[in-house]
Structure formats: structure tokens, C-alpha cells
């Protein structure tokens, strides 16, 4: 176990938008320094809401976010503005993520100026450094985003995030808008940066394959909660939660497997009580309709939120129900 406090702790985050099921329901997670946590889910799973709440781009309705012990959710607006550069987000759409009117150089320089991360005389050099870090030439600084391709723009977004010298980088579907061959480039870039800068990362995606490549620990989300936490030593194929298994069955594969949709009921709304997955689950039984299954460990750090799995495993439930990335 690590003695230092973890870098990021999110405690029981909840957020509800207007109707139906809450977008986030008491989600907790921790990320250690330099670690990578993967979050996998389909649309409506709450993964993007989680990313936004953790980075405080949106305020959770309840729960806390602690960065290195500092409670971000309790900070006043001015203090928050100063501290929030330590968590940076890279978004899905590289086209909407950059202000079209600013040159790349001025966008990067702005970060440095506002947070005084470089002396005025050294800004140009630092901008060139950041561009080199993401594989772009220094001549990019004088050009506007419109002159770059999707992959290049995503690099610029990463450079802008890095300019703030963050402790944690949250990547919310950073590859989904890119071509396949470019995805590989950007993925490799993120891995390189993690190694070079010991940057902690939270990688959010709907693509289980990609997440496994990047993140040793994976949290699977469904219906606004984490339903399974997969530590590095557990292979994807050994996942236990019925939703994760359904996801695996449905994944297309280069090995010429026809995807299996399982019992998905198209378009039906998720039930409001009990386990959100019960309408599609082959193992649904009595407690599933009324009790929301807690996230409990089944073996070591491998945790699952499912009555069927947990009942089958054992009855003890003393450990803290949390997804951890070490």
C-alpha cells in the first residue's frame, strides 16, 4: 500500500439533471500520483458527468472532491480559480475545443500569463517547448486552429492542458472524433506524456479496448454508478458484472466474431429503483428490484456492484466500496 495520500479523492458524488434517473449516484474513486484510471461506459452511463464533476466544470449536487488533501468543492470562487489549473481536461471534440479566433501561441501564452508559470521574457520559449512536447513545430504558434487537422488540434488541446502544469489530466473521449490511424498517434502521445511527466490521468471512453491499453485500473459505469472496478491483474475476460460481460459480448472483434447484443431492451428507460441494470440482466432476482447493489470487493481490488455476483462470492462486506487506481 502507498503511504502518501492519494492525489485525487472523489467521495460520493451525486448529480441530478432534470428528469428520471440521476446522472451520478454516490460515485467515489481515488487516483494516486502518476496512476491512470480508466472509466468505461456508454452514453447515459454518467461517465462524462463524472469527468465534469471531478474537474469541477460542473458542481456536484452532493459529495466532495479532494486534490492532494485540499477540498476543491469547499473553495470559494477566487480560490477555486487559482487551484483548478491542477486538474485539466481534454475534450472529445478537437474542433470545438479551441477558440477559433486565437492563434495557438496566444492561447498557450495566455495560460502561462494568467498563472504566472513563465517570466514574460520566457513565454515564447516555453510555448515552443510545449508544442515540441506534443509533437508540433514551433511555427504552429502563429497559426490559427482552423489550419490544423483533427489530430493536430487534439495535440494543441493537450499542449494547452499541459501548459497549466496540472497534477491530473482528465481525457474525456479524446480519441472518439479522430481517424483510426490518428487515434493510435494520440494514444501513444498520452502514454509518452504520462511516462515523461509522471502525470496522473483519468481516461474516459466507451471503447473498452482502448481503455485497457491505457489504464491498468478500469471502472465500468452504468446508470450513473460504478458497477465494476477492474484492477490491473484482472483480465477483461474475467469481468464479473453482468453489464461488463454484456459489453464484452457486444464488442466487435478482429477475430471475426459477430457481436452479441444480449437482452438489451432498446429504448426502454432505466428503472428508478433498485439495480439500474435489472431489466436487462439474466440473473435478476428478488433484491435487485428494491436494493441498489453496493460496490463490494469480490477478490482483492476487484469489486462488483451486483447482488447475484456478491451473493455468490461471499457474504462479507466490510471493505470500503470504492474504485482505486494505484
Amino acid at each position, binding site marked *: 500500500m502507498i503511504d502518501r495520500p492519494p492525489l485525487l479523492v472523489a467521495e460520493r458524488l451525486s448529480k441530478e439533471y432534470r428528469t428520471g434517473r440521476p446522472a451520478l449516484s454516490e460515485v467515489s474513486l481515488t487516483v494516486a500520483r502518476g496512476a491512470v484510471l480508466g472509466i468505461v461506459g456508454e452514453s447515459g452511463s454518467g461517465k462524462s458527468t463524472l469527468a465534469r464533476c471531478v*474537474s469541477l*466544470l460542473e458542481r456536484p449536487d452532493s459529495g466532495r472532491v479532494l486534490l492532494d488533501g485540499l477540498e476543491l468543492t469547499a473553495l470559494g470562487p477566487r480560490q*477555486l*480559480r*487559482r*487551484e*483548478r*489549473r491542477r*486538474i*485539466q*481536461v481534454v*475534450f472529445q*471534440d478537437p474542433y*470545438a*475545443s*479551441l*477558440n*477559433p*479566433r*486565437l492563434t495557438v501561441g496566444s492561447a498557450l501564452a*495566455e*495560460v502561462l500569463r*494568467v*498563472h504566472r508559470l513563465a517570466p514574460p521574457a520566457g513565454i515564447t520559449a516555453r510555448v515552443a517547448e510545449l508544442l515540441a512536447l506534443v509533437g508540433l513545430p514551433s511555427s504552429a504558434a502563429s497559426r490559427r486552429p*482552423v*489550419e490544423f487537422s483533427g489530430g493536430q488540434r487534439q495535440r494543441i*488541446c493537450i499542449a*494547452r492542458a499541459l501548459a*497549466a502544469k496540472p497534477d491530473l489530466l482528465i481525457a474525456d473521449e479524446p480519441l472518439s472524433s479522430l481517424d483510426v490511424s490518428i487515434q493510435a498517434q494520440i494514444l501513444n502521445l498520452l502514454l509518452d506524456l504520462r511516462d515523461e511527466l509522471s502525470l496522473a490521468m483519468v481516461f474516459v471512453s466507451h471503447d473498452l479496448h482502448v481503455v485497457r491499453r491505457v489504464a491498468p485500473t478500469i471502472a465500468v459505469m452504468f446508470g450513473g454508478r460504478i458497477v465494476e472496478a477492474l484492477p490491473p491483474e484482472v483480465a477483461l475476460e474475467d469481468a464479473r458484472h453482468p453489464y461488463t460481460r454484456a459489453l464484452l459480448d457486444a464488442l466487435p472483434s478482429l477475430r471475426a466474431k459477430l457481436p452479441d447484443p444480449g437482452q438489451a431492451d432498446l429504448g426502454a428507460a432505466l428503472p428508478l429503483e433498485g439495480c439500474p441494470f435489472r431489466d436487462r440482466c439474466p440473473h435478476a432476482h428478488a433484491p435487485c428490484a428494491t436494493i441498489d447493489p453496493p460496490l463490494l470487493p469480490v477478490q482483492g481490488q476487484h469489486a462488483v456492484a451486483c447482488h447475484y455476483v456478491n451473493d455468490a462470492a461471499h457474504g462479507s462486506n466490510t471493505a470500503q466500496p470504492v474504485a482505486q487506481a494505484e
Partner: protein
Amino acid sequence: MSNVLAREVLPRLERPALRFVTSPGWSRRIGLLGVVAIVLIALIGPLVSPYGADAQNLAATLQHPSWQHPFGTDQFGRDILTRVMAAARVDLQIGFFGVTIPLVIGTVIGLLAGYFGGLLDIVSGRLIDVFTAFPFFVLVIAIVAMLGPGLRNLYIAISAVSWVAYARLVRAETLSAKKREYVLAAHGLGYGSVRIMRRHLLSNVVSPALVFAMSDFVLDILVGASIGFFGLGVQPPAAEWGTMIADGRDFLITDPWLVIFPGLAIVVLGFFVSLLGDGLADYIRRVDAGV
């Protein structure tokens, strides 16, 4: 010579400000040319004309258009061509101030209301509703009637009523722009509201307002002319197209040129400004699309 052209001149023409002039688009260029031409005529015309705009010549009243008086003379013998050119100064000003003041006020209010929402948005929204409930002309005339005739009061009246349209446009753009990822990123980078509004929102939300400003320009000139027509605008003997038309009404049947030429001037200026506005809208669309 052509080397110098290629090396020095052409790259400079590529700079953003000049690109507005040089990039392709005939409406914009013709509109710009026309407006610039009219401005030049307004500035220089009265200076080079042998006649003063207000110089009466009672021996040569109501002359038909001729070589000496291309637009003819009015009932006081004043040369209409000179008066039309002098009046251009006034009407151009009316258009200019009648647009820029409301543009600034409306943009600021719209940006603040759209960005902060809440009470500010509600209050300004109701205010906008109140002003929108009244017909534009009626309100302007009412305010001018209250304050008294004269150019300055005209500007006040127009500004007080027109800002509403700009505020609405800018607010709508701001509401959608503030959700875009680059604004979210600015929040995430800890930028304050002022910086976000100034650097990241303003130039991206003001385009529809700018395009509207072009048609508003023409409208304001018409308002100025109408106010002048009612006798509430510039006072005699100052030249202004609307007052010229009003004064020439009595002679419409016998000496229509008193009315035709100022009227034509309004149409021509309106035409070029519309073209400019069209071209501007097109240009902005292209710049935003990255072409």
C-alpha cells in the same frame, strides 16, 4: 517591380484587417467601394463645389438640372447637388452613430445577460420585452418630440430604442457559445469572467450583431430622414436628405428634382450599405468555416 510586389506587398495584403478588402466576394467589394465613394463625396464635394450649401441665389430659383446646376436649384436658388453632398455628411453620421452606440450598449448588455444569466438576464429580458412592444418609429418620434428637435436628441432617441435588437442577438449567441468546449476549457484553466467574456466570447458572438448593424444603418438613415420630414430633425438651413424631401414636397408636381435627388441619394447609400452587409455576412461565414 513584380518581385517587390510578390515579396513585400502581397504578403502584407494577407494580414487579417486587409483581408476584408482583398479576399474574393463582389458584393462586399462593390458595397465597400460605394460607401467609401459616398463618404469621400460627402467630405470633399461641398469643399470643391463653387456653390455654398446654404448660399441662396434668389435670381436662380427652381432651375431645371443643367450644366451649371446638375441637380437644379431649389426654391431659394441653392444648388441641390451641393446640398445633397452636404446632407450626406449629416445622414452618414446619423447612420453611423445610430448604429455604433446601440451596438456597443446592446452587445455589453447581451453578453452580460447571456453569460451570467439569473437576475441580470431576467431584468434585461423584461426590459427588452417592453421596448419591443412599441413600434420602433413611434417610440423614436415620441422621444424626439419630448426632447426637442436636433441631431443630438435624435441619436439619444435611436440609441435608447435600438440597443434592444443587438442585445437580443448577442445574448442568443452568448447562450450557445458559452457551452462550447473552448469556453469550458477557459473555465477549467481558471480564467475569470471578464477575461472569458472579453477574449473568448466577444469576438465569437458579435458577428450576427455586426451583420444586423448594416441593415440597421440603412434603417437609421430612413428614420433620420423621416424625423427630418416631420420637422423634428436638423433645423433649417442645414441640409439633410429628409428635410430636403419635406421642403421639396410643395414643388413635387412642377419641380420634382427637389425631391428626386435627395431620395435617390438615400436609395443609393442604402443599396451600397446593403451590399456591404451581405458581403460582410458572407465573409464572416467563410472566416468561421475556415475557408
